[in-house]
Each structure stands twice: as C-alpha cells, then as structure tokens.
C-alpha cells in the first residue's frame, strides 16, 4: 500500500513492534490534546493555560489527587469488566447498564436490611452488585450464544432500559420521603457504607479494582481458560475444532464482564454517594471502552489508564469554572481512541520512505 504519491510505503512486520506498543498510546494522547487545543482556540480559550490547570489541579494537589483516584475507581472496574468480554471479541457495550443494575441491586440490599452490621451487609451488597450486573450481561449473552444475535446492539439497548429503570425507582417507589421531593433514595445506614482511607473520599472500591486487575491478569495470562477465550476470540473456527464450548464460554464471559461492571455501580453507591440517584454515572461504562482499548486489554495497564482518565475527568470539572464545557473531556477521550486506532497500523506495518521495498517475494499468489 502506498501513501503520499508513493513516498511512503507500508511493509508488514513479522511481529507487532514492542517499541510502537508503548510509543503509539503516548503519541495518541499528545495528538488528542492538540485536537482539543484547536477546539479550545476556536472557542476563544487559551489551550495551554487550560491544560496546565487541568493537569496541576488533578494531579498536583493532595485534594485533586484523591479526587482523581475516586473517579478512577468506577472507570477501572468498568474498564476491567468490558475488557473481559473484548478479550473474546465479544463487544459488550452494555457496561453502563450493567453498572446501573449493579448499583440497583446493591441499593436494594442496603434499603431492605438497614439495621444489619457491615460485616453482613457489605459482602451481601458486593454479591448483589455482581449479580445485578452479571444478569444484565447474561441477558444479551443468551441470544448471542444460541442464535448469533448481534450483542453490540442488544447490550447497548439494555443500557437505556437500565437507566430508565433506575429513574423509575428514584422518582417513584424508592424516593426518600424525607428528601424534599428530590429524586434520591434514602441515605444508606452506616453498615452499608464502604470504609474510606483516612478522611479522604477514597473508598474500598479501589481495593476491589486493584485485586480484580491482578486476578484477571493471572487468569488471562496464566490459566487455561484465559487462553481458551483468547483463541475463541481470535479464531472461532480453530476453537471449535479444538473442542472448546463456544456458547458456554459466551455466557460465562458475558456474566463475568457484567458482574465486574456491576461492581463498579455497587462501589459508587456504597463507597461514594451512599444512596442511589439518577445520572450518577457520567458515562463511565462508555469511557471504560476507551480505557480498555487504550490499555490493549491488559488488566494492569487498565489500572494505569483509568487513573489518567480519572485525572482528565477531575480536570474537566475544574476548568468548567473558566467557561470550558466539561464535555470537552468526552471529546478528548474520543479523539484519543481515533489516534490509537490509526496508530495501530505502526504496530503491524513498518513505514518505509521513498524507495519501495523489493516486492517480488511478497505474499501469496494473486487470485483467491
């Protein structure tokens, strides 16, 4: 393939370049910031001061750093959740809905057993969060596994249903009678609240995220099952030939994926908000998709990327006071993904300048 009138040619690499695997994400983030700078400039803002403020406030102060970690918790959990499915090339776009259903199920436990101690309530809420998200992941997995129904669309449609379901509850039957008619549930009892680190807002959800990241890393890289889902994803034909049970794996993978996303919702209500309210997620389930892809589905890298994206989220809130819409962050995140996708070609191909390489021994014969 040729670009720029044949000045640049692409040559397939035998193996993905390890240097580019690190370089491409870094360059992508820089380029995305440049795109953001153009938009900031167009709307009459100074990009450099805005970025400096975002960065220094999100990572440079004690408070900012703790808020960054707080925001990174749901991103990390949801990122890990969708990565499980992506690993098998199952496109679970339903992280957002699974997060809402996890929050719903955990809230149900908290509201129904208000007088129980934490040692009883918290594990039960943890379990409920996993079940809520897991079931929401399993619903689209069933038609996918047995009929081949496109999971992208079904998981996405269920996001809207889950969000409307939570809205129905907090505007209706679960509305706090003492809440001055605000759409909120009653505040959780002390036993239903996750412990925090010192007097900060960083809660035990961080431990869930870190633990699951390590567990998933081991599962993906050191277990038979981790290998199996990867093979199914890469070449379903070979997997079937090797006797792997694809439908059953689809169900298990989607349930696990949903459960981890559901845990993100549980951690948000139990660790941070201490109640259920509508719109508590500014699209964590969608940002999680970008995080998982940026981290190349490596669970440990997801922790790091989630931390950076948490900072981006915090920085975005802070610069709102300077008149920059917080939605700029969503735009930045989207453009990072574009550059990562475009940059991936550098992993698979080598750019050659001017003189095209010898093509006589390349590839297979022409025709089929």
């Amino acid at each position, binding site marked *: *393939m040729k*670009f720029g009138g044949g000045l640049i040619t692409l040559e*397939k690499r035998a193996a993905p370049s390890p240097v580019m695997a690190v370089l491409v994400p870094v360059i992508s983030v820089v380029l995305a910031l440049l795109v953001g700078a153009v*938009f900031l400039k167009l709307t009459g803002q100074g990009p450099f001061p805005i970025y400096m403020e975002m960065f220094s406030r999100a990572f440079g102060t004690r408070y900012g750093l703790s808020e960054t970690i707080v925001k990174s918790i749901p991103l990390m959990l949801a990122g890990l959740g969708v990565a499980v499915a992506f690993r098998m090339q199952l*496109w679970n*776009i339903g992280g957002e809905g699974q997060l809402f259903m996890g929050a719903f199920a955990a809230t149900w436990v908290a509201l129904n057993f208000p007088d129980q101690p934490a040692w009883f309530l918290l594990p039960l809420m943890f379990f409920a969060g996993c079940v809520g998200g897991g079931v929401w992941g399993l619903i*689209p997995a069933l*038609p996918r596994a047995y*009929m*081949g*129904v*496109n999971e*992208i*669309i*079904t998981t*996405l*449609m*269920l996001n*809207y*249903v889950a969000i*409307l*379901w939570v*809205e*129905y509850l907090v*505007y*209706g039957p679960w509305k706090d009678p003492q809440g001055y008619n605000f759409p909120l549930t009653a505040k959780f009892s002390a036993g239903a609240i996750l412990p925090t680190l010192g007097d900060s807002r960083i809660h035990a959800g961080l431990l869930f995220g870190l633990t699951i990241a390590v567990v998933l890393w081991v599962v993906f890289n050191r277990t038979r099952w981790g290998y199996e889902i990867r093979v199914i994803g890469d070449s379903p034909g070979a997997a079937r030939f090797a006797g792997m049970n694809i439908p059953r794996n689809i169900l298990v993978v989607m349930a696990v994926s949903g459960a981890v996303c559901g845990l993100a919702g549980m951690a948000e209500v139990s660790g941070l908000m201490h109640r259920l309210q509508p719109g508590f997620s500014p*699209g964590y389930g*969608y*940002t999680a*998709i*970008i995080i998982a*892809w940026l981290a190349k589905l490596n669970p440990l890298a997801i922790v790091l990327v989630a931390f950076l994206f948490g900072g981006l989220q915090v920085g975005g809130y802070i610069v709102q006071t300077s008149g920059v*819409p917080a*939605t*700029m*962050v*969503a*735009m*930045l*995140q*989207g*453009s990072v*993904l*574009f550059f990562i*996708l*475009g940059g*991936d*070609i550098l992993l698979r191909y080598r750019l050659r300048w001017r003189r095209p390489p010898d093509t006589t021994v*390349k*590839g*297979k014969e*022409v*025709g*089929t």
Partner: protein
Amino acid sequence: MNYDFLVAVLATAVVAGTPILYAALGEIVCERAGILNLGVEGMMLVGAVTGFIAALSTGNPWAGVLMALLAGGAMASIHAFLTVSLKANQVVSGLALTLFGTGLSAYIGKAYIGMPLPNPFRPVEVPVLSEIPFLGAILFRNDPLVYLSFLLVPLLWFLLFGTRAGLNMRAVGENPAAADSLGVNVFATRYMYVIIGGMLAGIGGAYLSLTYVPAWMENMVAGRGWIAVALVIFATWNPVNALIGSYIFGGIHALGFRLQTLDVSVSPYFLKMLPYLFTIAVLIFVTRKNNLNRIGAPKALGLAYDREER
C-alpha cells in the same frame, strides 16, 4: 381506539420514523459496501447540532440540512480513513466515532441548549394526495424532509439493484478481491459510500433538531442511531424494508408518547423503555428468521481489504 386516534398515531409514526429512516438508509449504503459503521449515533448528534446552528444563524432550515449533511460526511470520512486506509477495527472505530460525536456535539451545542428555532420545517399539504381518505392525512400532510425520504427510498433501491454502480457497491461488500480484479476501485468505492452514509445520518439527526423537536438538547438522538443499525438487519439491507421498519419503530415511539397523554396507569419510564425493548425483541426474531432463510450480512462486512492478502 377510535379512527382519529389511529390516524394520529400513524401520522406520528411516520414523523418519528423519519430520522431513523434516513440513518438506516445511510447505514445500508455503507454496509452494502462492506464497512460497518457503528458511529451512526455520533454522526446524527453532530448533524443535529450543526444543522440547528446553521438554520438558526441563516434563518433557513435548508441551510441546516446542508450543514448537517456536510458534518455527517466529515465525521464519516474519519471512519473511512481509519477503516479503509488504515484497516483499523471497524467496531472500535465506529464506537470511537459515537463517543467523539457525543462529546463534540455537546461541546459545540452548549450555548444553544433550549433555544427555540423560529424557522423550523413546517408541514406542507400535497395537493390532491392529501385528500386521500386515511392515507392522505398520514403520509401527505408532512414536512419537506419526509417527502424527500419518500423519494430517497426508491432512488436508493434502484441504485442498489438497477445500476452498474450498485452492482459494484454490492460486489465490493461481498467479495472485494473479485471486484478489485474486475477493475472496481475498492478503496474509492468504500470511501464514497461510507461518506454518503454519514451524510444521510447527518440529515437524520438534523430532522430531530429542525422539525421533530425542534431545538437542540444534549444527547437528543437518544439511541435512535443504534436503533437504525439494528433496523438494517431487520431490513435485510434493503431500502424498501427499511422504510417499513422505520415506521414500525416510529409507531412504537408514537404509541408510547400518545399513551402518556391518555389516562394509562403505566409509568412513563416503562413506556420510554418500549422502543429499546422492542428493538431487542425484533433483532432476536429477525436474526432467527434470517438464519433460517440463509439471509446474511454482506460477506465482507467488517473485514478490511488488503490487496497484498487477497
């Protein structure tokens, strides 16, 4: 359910189905050429906001349509570059387009939220045809963009199944290597139809902000782009079926909306779930039926074409 109510629901179904129809027609063209574009929702949002701004500042809704068309096409060209030239994963690239479009539209639309549009498209009664009993009131008392979609459906159908260009488009989607060896430019063909698809999605979005609402609200497309993607499967990649499907989906929207105005003791939140649940149900049903009839997506859909690997 009396006569007037039925006519009202069906007329609303046509109006509510029109944005989905535009988007679905765009996605059909794109997928027929072998490229899956999951960025419909994002392209519709950008079309909605840019169209609204253009219509507001020029005072002419047609300027809005033109702007939305260009913006949708520009968005789609990013997807075309990534998936056709750079052979990026089409699923992820489309998702990126939706995420980017959601952020971008919210960013540029911030100052326009809640502003009324003084010059939206207004219904125009078609002489004679609008007097047809029953159908006239449903089909021929609409705004110009609805009539444009009436024309677009047979036009695209003819392009697909009646012309050389359509044959090439389908060949590129089914078997790009064969099309290439017959002298069809696979890359140019794919670029063209991905961009045309984006333009149609842009108009679909603009229909919401120029006629249906008419105003700009964040995330106003509310999943219609995704419903359009599902509809393409329902329509078995055929524009005429897409017309029928869009009005069925529009009808579900309309029914939910109309039922709220009656005295129905169902929570509005459940009524709002209807289109999404219906999409899932239809998708399951249609996938089963397509499997039985061996109707499938274009064979090369979602696969990058590499001349060196054919």
